[in-house]
């Protein structure tokens, strides 16, 4: 899930100043779970921007999916044509998809933070850095690239403090945890498997995944 955070309302007010007619766009998937772009937050945004003419509010299931956005915007074609700008409560990918689909000025109301694991509402944790060089099969399903502040692929480093991380002393070093888990699962041999440096070509932006036609 993409974890987002609301921008300062004053920033949104400032950014919307040049525009009279606005549409507010929510995301009923990731941003709804984060309580940053669900229907409640769309209403709150409408209230914040009460000085403008809000011609429509819309919650799109996956605004990042251009097919879904295009379909949903067709339902408010007239309002869209009349709108000066759209205030989008979605991740950066969603906001850009909305911009491409509508070709209208877009004001992004959220900051996109990370790909998150949800423990429960309000408890989101980064577990994957999307490096494109996954070694989870060798590391007891714990990603050291993400869970180690240095992103070390063959750890621990010399800064380990007993079993603790030197950067976050309240946490165990992930490489200590990997070692313990591998031992418990009967695969301690995986611990010293050498992992090559990250192939940055796999995470060089902008990334694309294009299926080959058969």
């Amino acid at each position, binding site marked *: 899930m993409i974890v987002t955070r609301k921008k300062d309302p004053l920033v949104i007010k400032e950014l919307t100043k040049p525009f009279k007619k606005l549409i507010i766009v929510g995301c009923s998937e990731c941003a709804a779970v984060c309580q940053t772009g669900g229907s409640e937050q769309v209403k709150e945004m409408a209230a914040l921007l009460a000085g403008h003419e809000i011609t429509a509010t819309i919650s799109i299931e996956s605004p990042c999916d251009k097919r879904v956005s295009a379909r949903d915007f067709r339902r408010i074609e007239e309002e869209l044509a009349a709108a000066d700008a759209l205030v989008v409560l979605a991740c950066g990918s969603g906001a850009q998809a909305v911009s491409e689909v509508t070709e209208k000025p877009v004001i992004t109301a959220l900051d996109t933070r990370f790909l998150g694991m949800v423990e429960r509402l309000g408890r989101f944790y980064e577990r994957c850095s999307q490096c494109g060089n996954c070694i989870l099969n060798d590391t007891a399903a714990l990603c050291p690239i993400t869970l180690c*502040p*240095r*992103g*070390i*692929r*063959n*750890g*621990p*480093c*010399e*800064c*380990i*403090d*007993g*079993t603790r991380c*030197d*950067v976050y002393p309240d946490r165990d*070093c992930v*490489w*200590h945890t*990997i*070692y*313990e888990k591998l031992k418990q699962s009967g695969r*301690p041999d995986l*611990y*010293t498997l*050498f*992992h*090559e*440096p*990250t192939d940055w070509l796999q995470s060089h932006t902008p990334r694309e995944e294009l299926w080959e036609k058969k």
Partner: protein
Amino acid sequence: MKPVAFLYLPAVDDTGQCLERLSVTEQGTALVLGEYGLLNPLAIMHELKSSWEGDIYLELTAAGKNRDLIKSYLVSAAQSGFAGVVLASGLFTIAPGMGKPVFDLDPAQMLKLALDLKTKAVIPENFIIAVRAPEGGEAALARARFFLENGADLAVYKNAPPEALKDHAALIRNI
């Protein structure tokens, strides 16, 4: 010859101060220059060599360098007269306004890079490749053992090394 102990100067901010400090330090021991000061140790090597009687090593940290720069440091250290390097990941500090942290390689990957350079004779065969050892539990011991089994000349410890590795370990202490 591999040293059994190192003296460590973590940071060099000023050449004069550094020389003065070393002039009152016991000579003859292997000296490790760290990269935490304003001055790059490569820049003062020439002056240090004429005033220090023992071998001088560079503590080469992964912090703030990508693999290209690390390679350049290894070659430069060898050509500048350093007797070897002590590889380390380096400190990670969190501070407001900090630059983007770069940890492109880890010490195991740095070790492999250094050994590849030796194989290709880009750095001399007698250039010592030591690695700062993690200290603490079984996981740390397993990694230190990995370094030695995979070509490191020495595992460098702040505290007493584990009995099993003591023949291939060196102690390091701050000046």
